[in-house]
């Protein structure tokens, strides 16, 4: 069996395991009446600010930004997977197995990113019309792959963060919440990134969501194809960069934990 086939098998099983976890956590009823209602309310909360400002343009900006960022912020929840493995006592077994832990973890939480993408698209589709947004068809369909791209880029970023806090389980909740609210603040979700001071604008360029969101706004506003493709390419590049960093550093973080025995026992 070639290494590629073996890796593909690990990926498939890790995805299946993650998906099963997801369906243990959520039933269809709790997902619809719990999670979806929460996300729709979140998008409504920000869209209402535009209505209070009596600005349809602001309403549209805030609604689209806060719906799309759900794809990114949901992917950040994947950080929880790593600490969950520790809580279940299975992390050391995974680390001891011959499969690279980075491949397992990268695949295991993909369902979280998929869930986020679906939720973000549903928020756009349901909450948008409530605030008189109309989407230009068929070009609006391009929003689907762009949102998926954002979800994957954010997922790569969150995989890096998961490695970073692997031995600091107590910081998990803080890192997840801080990352989500930072993405909301910095990635052009609520105000254009040009409104920030230059250092923050540069930081925004290095984060997931920023360029994908610009591409989505351009798509829905009837922008030219070059701008859309350019920003989609940048989102892809940011995601690929974070994935590379995640894969490079994850083994190192695990190695530290193996050396000092802290994978299971540090807080």
């Amino acid at each position, binding site marked *: 069996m070639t290494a590629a086939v073996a890796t593909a098998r690990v990926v498939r099983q890790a995805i299946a395991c993650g998906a099963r976890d997801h369906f243990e956590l959520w039933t269809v009823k709790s997902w619809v009446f*719990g*999670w979806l209602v929460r996300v729709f309310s*979140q998008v409504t*909360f920000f869209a209402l600010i535009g209505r209070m*400002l009596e600005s349809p343009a602001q309403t549209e900006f805030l609604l689209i930004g806060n719906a799309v960022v759900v794809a990114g912020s949901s992917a950040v929840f994947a950080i929880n997977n790593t600490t969950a493995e520790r809580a279940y006592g299975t992390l050391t077994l995974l680390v001891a197995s011959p499969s690279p832990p980075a491949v397992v973890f990268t695949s295991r939480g993909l369902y979280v990113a998929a869930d986020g993408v679906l939720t973000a698209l549903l928020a756009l589709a349901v909450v948008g019309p409530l605030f008189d947004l109309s989407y230009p068809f068929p070009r609006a369909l391009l929003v689907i792959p762009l949102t998926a791209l954002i979800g994957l880029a954010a997922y790569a970023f969150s995989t890096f963060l998961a490695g970073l806090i692997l031995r600091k389980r107590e*910081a998990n909740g*803080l890192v997840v919440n801080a990352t989500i*609210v930072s993405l909301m*603040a910095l990635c052009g979700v*609520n105000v254009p990134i040009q409104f920030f001071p230059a250092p923050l604008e540069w930081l925004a360029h290095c984060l997931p969501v920023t360029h994908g969101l610009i591409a989505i706004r351009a798509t829905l506003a009837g922008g030219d194809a070059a701008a859309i493709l350019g920003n989609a390419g940048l989102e892809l590049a940011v995601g690929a960069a974070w994935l590379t960093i995640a894969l490079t550093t994850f083994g190192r973080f695990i190695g530290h934990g193996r050396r000092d025995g802290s994978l299971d026992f540090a807080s």
Partner: protein
Amino acid sequence: MRAFTAGFRLQLRTIGAYPDAVIPFFTAPMFAIIFLLIFDHAGREDLTAYALVAPVFIALWWLALFQAGWVISIDRWNEVLELLVAAPGGFAQAVLGRIVAVTAAGVVSFVEVWLVARLLFSASVEIHHPWLFGATVVATLAAMAGTAVVLSGLFVLTRNAATFGNSASFPFYVLGGILVPVSFLPDWIQPLSRVVFLSWSADLLRGSLLPGPVDDAWLRLAMVVLLGAAGFAGGHLLLSYVLQRVRATGDVARL
């Protein structure tokens, strides 16, 4: 009173020991930055008070939902609930002491949000009605503690407590009008908002920060107190039911 004090002190130590407990103290200033950026970008500095009130409610609600609401459930998981129920000290007083400690810690977010506005946005934040502001803060903290008592009972009795906890943030922020007043919501939903104490508190706090008279201030303050008291009463009934049931079955941790 000793049980209350012991619960209060225990919870303060817990807050210091677990980073999760300080999450709202990071997110509240970040939400303040987001809201201030939106209003700054829109050229609406007149809405600064709105941007400062909302993050405080987000922090308080988070504390009620994820810290105070879970005190009994966490005791069950740590297998100390049996000891607490069997102890001669008052169970309800100890739980209340812990919940009040969490709620009182929320005051920190007021200071943080004020500092963000002052230092990052050079916004002048003046309390135009200090007595009303003080009274509303106290009534809001009490009502939040009352809500947390209800949640702590519900979380013990409900199988899907975690799901509810994760989902009950933004729906209540919208219904409570913590940033955008309830008057901007559709007419059919506004009566529902009026039974959420957040809507009365948020209106009053915004009003106390703005110049100009605040209409029906004491009546609205009474509504916050009334809804908070209803929370305490409901919570007390729920906790009594929980205690009665665990004592009858003798199966505290597996309720």
